[in-house]
């Protein structure tokens, strides 16, 4: 029963979505819309599950004075503050939640992301070596695109932006399309396996 019900739900949901994509009709549209509403509700509960899980894990670490336990306390306080103010006062403009988000969370996230620029520059300088033919091609291409895609590029060589655009629109797109098609085929076959009940790892078993 523990396996059959989830497999049946997965099959019916997947089958309905496939039929809805290709078919039409009032009843089908009604059914699909209801299923999509359920999906957003289930996704909402999965977020709640995530909150419960992170609280349990962090609280466990704090109680046992495990690794980095002071950070877990900060995490729990931040979680409680954001949830509390969000639930009590709302999350729109002028609320404490909004203030905390704008003044603390947003700058911290932007800072973390900005720091990447320094590490990327350092890593590129240390690791980007033309050791093989393939690495040399990559290196030359990267330099053309990096210079050709910024305003300074046309001062260095007038046609550099056109060469960079050509690289982006043709060799790059050809490779990207191959990756997209490959990933889509993989996703389609995995979806079929789930719908048909062959793939069951999402239930925590093989």
């Amino acid at each position, binding site marked *: 029963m523990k396996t059959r019900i989830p497999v049946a739900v997965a099959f019916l949901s997947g089958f309905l979505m496939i039929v809805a*994509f290709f078919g039409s009709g009032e009843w089908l*549209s009604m059914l*699909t*819309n209801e299923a*999509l*509403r359920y*999906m*957003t509700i*289930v*996704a*909402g509960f*999965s*977020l709640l599950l995530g909150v419960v899980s992170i609280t349990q894990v962090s609280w466990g670490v704090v109680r046992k004075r495990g690794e980095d336990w002071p950070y877990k306390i900060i995490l729990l306080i931040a979680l409680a503050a954001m949830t509390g103010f969000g639930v009590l006062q*709302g*999350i*729109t*403009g002028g609320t404490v939640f*909004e203030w905390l*988000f*704008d003044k603390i*969370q*947003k700058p911290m*996230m*932007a800072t*973390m*992301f*900005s720091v990447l*620029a*320094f590490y990327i*520059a*350092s890593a*590129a*300088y*240390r690791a*980007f*070596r*033309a050791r093989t033919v393939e690495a040399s091609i990559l*290196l030359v291409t*990267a*330099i053309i695109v*990096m*210079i050709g*895609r*910024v*305003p*300074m*590029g*046309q*001062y260095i060589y007038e046609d550099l*932006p056109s060469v960079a*655009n050509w690289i*982006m*629109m043709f060799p*790059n*797109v050809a490779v*990207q*399309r191959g*990756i*997209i098609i490959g990933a889509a085929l993989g996703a389609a076959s995995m979806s079929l396996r789930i719908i048909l009940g062959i793939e069951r790892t999402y239930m925590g078993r093989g």
Partner: protein
Amino acid sequence: MANQGNKGFFTRLQNVDRRVLFVLIFASVIVPLFFPLKLPVPVTPETREFFEAVEAIPDSSIVMLPFDFWPSTLAETEPMAVVGLRHLFRKNCYVVGLSNVGMGGPSIADRLLDSIGGEFGKTYGIDYVNLGYKANYQAVMLGMGERIEDIFPTDHRGTPLSEIPLMRRVPNYDSVSFIFVVSDNVAVDYWVGLVNSRFGVPMGAGVTAVMAPKSLSFVQANQLVGLMGGMKGCAEYENLLGYPARATRGMDSQSIIHLLIVLFIVMGNVGYFAAKRKAKVEG
């Protein structure tokens, strides 16, 4: 450091202290902001196509603008949303905002819609609306094709959609003339794959620079009418619109940083090959 002094010049060329590089990067970002070079920004075909497609939307059309980006990429994505809103409000389009990013998306949307809407004297609920966030973006995108009110019974401020004049005119994608996606994540793939392919709504996208190479394949396949790729794409769009703003100001810094990184890469390679050759000669 003393040991490094004994090493050859070419070895040292490969091992410049990373703190030196960090200081140079920092200076390259900051200095041009105070002393701009004001380099002209050449326009790429994909940005021009995007701009022209938005320009071709009939005035007073209804346009959807998903704010699908995290606060971490605001430096790149916020100017895109701003320039998009300015273009749409200038054409008196009605803007339906929403976000598929729970953390921050709706409040960023609220702030930008109010601020840019205010510049053009627009009123919330009549000229623009913020639907907010609902989890599971695939279901949200598909569901809005049937009935937006089923997915978003209320807007971000908790007002039922039936009480919002603009939303009474927008039951689903049939009323939407264009979707102006601003995204820093895979959501843009789903806008293309689920909404453009199934419901046929024309769309263009502003994406971060790291996403642009992938998104260009959607442009070539005409699934996206055009693309703003990173801050550079946004600067191009700002200049086409005649509102040079934050992205344009960032172009000088970006030019110098790119040059600096290329210089260091070349330096590292010169050092690598010269040291290798020297070692070979010395046996």
